[in-house]
């Protein structure tokens, strides 16, 4: 193909057999803004690495794929003793200040801005990105029943409302993340 009078050619192993058959299951059980993103970002990273990725949205994580709530997830720092303003000035923010009226709204706004500044999409657009990348999105049956929600209430890319056993069955052999 080409002359090799220098070092032999190195071709990246994009389709190495090692990644074949690798599967990742991510269980999203929290509906706070800051707990939604880790799952979304890791799923996106896995899909970009050609890893078959299944996400299961359960309990509060159901809000991530519910049309009525997905664009409006919130961040509260109550109970988060690690809370500090963006950057590390050494200044902390007492977590109980987060209980003051308006604190959650303000903290959410700030976090959304930080995320947008990095050109990272909001939750609905992120779901589209994942769907387009081939993610399998599953809704938890029990969560749907508890909230009296049906597939019509969910983001279109959700493949179905399934039971916990169904999810365990279809992610056989997968690496698993519980968030």
């Amino acid at each position: 193909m080409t002359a090799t009078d220098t070092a032999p050619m190195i071709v990246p192993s994009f389709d190495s057999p090692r990644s074949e058959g690798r599967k990742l299951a991510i269980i999203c059980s929290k509906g706070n803004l800051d707990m939604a993103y880790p799952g979304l970002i890791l799923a996106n990273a896995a899909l970009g690495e050609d890893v078959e990725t299944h996400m299961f949205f359960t309990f509060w994580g159901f809000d991530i794929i519910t049309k009525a709530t997905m664009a409006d997830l919130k961040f509260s720092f109550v109970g988060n003793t690690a809370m500090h303003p963006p950057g590390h000035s050494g200044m902390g923010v007492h977590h109980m200040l987060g209980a003051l009226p308006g604190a959650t709204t303000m903290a959410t706004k700030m976090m959304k801005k930080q995320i947008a500044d990095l050109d990272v999409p909001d939750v609905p657009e992120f779901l589209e990105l994942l769907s387009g990348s081939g993610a399998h999105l599953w809704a938890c049956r029990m969560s749907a029943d508890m909230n009296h929600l049906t597939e019509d209430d969910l983001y279109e890319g959700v493949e179905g409302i399934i039971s916990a056993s169904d999810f365990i069955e279809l992610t056989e052999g997968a690496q698993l993340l519980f968030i």
Partner: protein
Amino acid sequence: MTTTTIAGRQVDVNDEGFLVEPGQWTEDLAAELATLIGLELTDAHWKLIRFLRDDYVTQGETATLRRVSTRTGTPVKELFALFPGKPAKKMAYVSGLPKPKGCV
């Protein structure tokens, strides 16, 4: 870093085979790099490669998959169809750029 010969030209590559010097890249080389990873470049591929090259000049880093998608108006699904498996890395490789660093 290793010096190797691709398409009759000496180029510097890293241990994965990615070009180290984006300046050593040419469109002829892109076609050869694509062949090496089993791709045949069409106009649709070229549109994306040219975007990646231009964007790298202005941004100083390789565009992520999402950036390529939003800035070129190409659905992510199509990017996966054009550069199957690991589109962001494959696009970077063919464009003679480092792997994207951004998470999303």
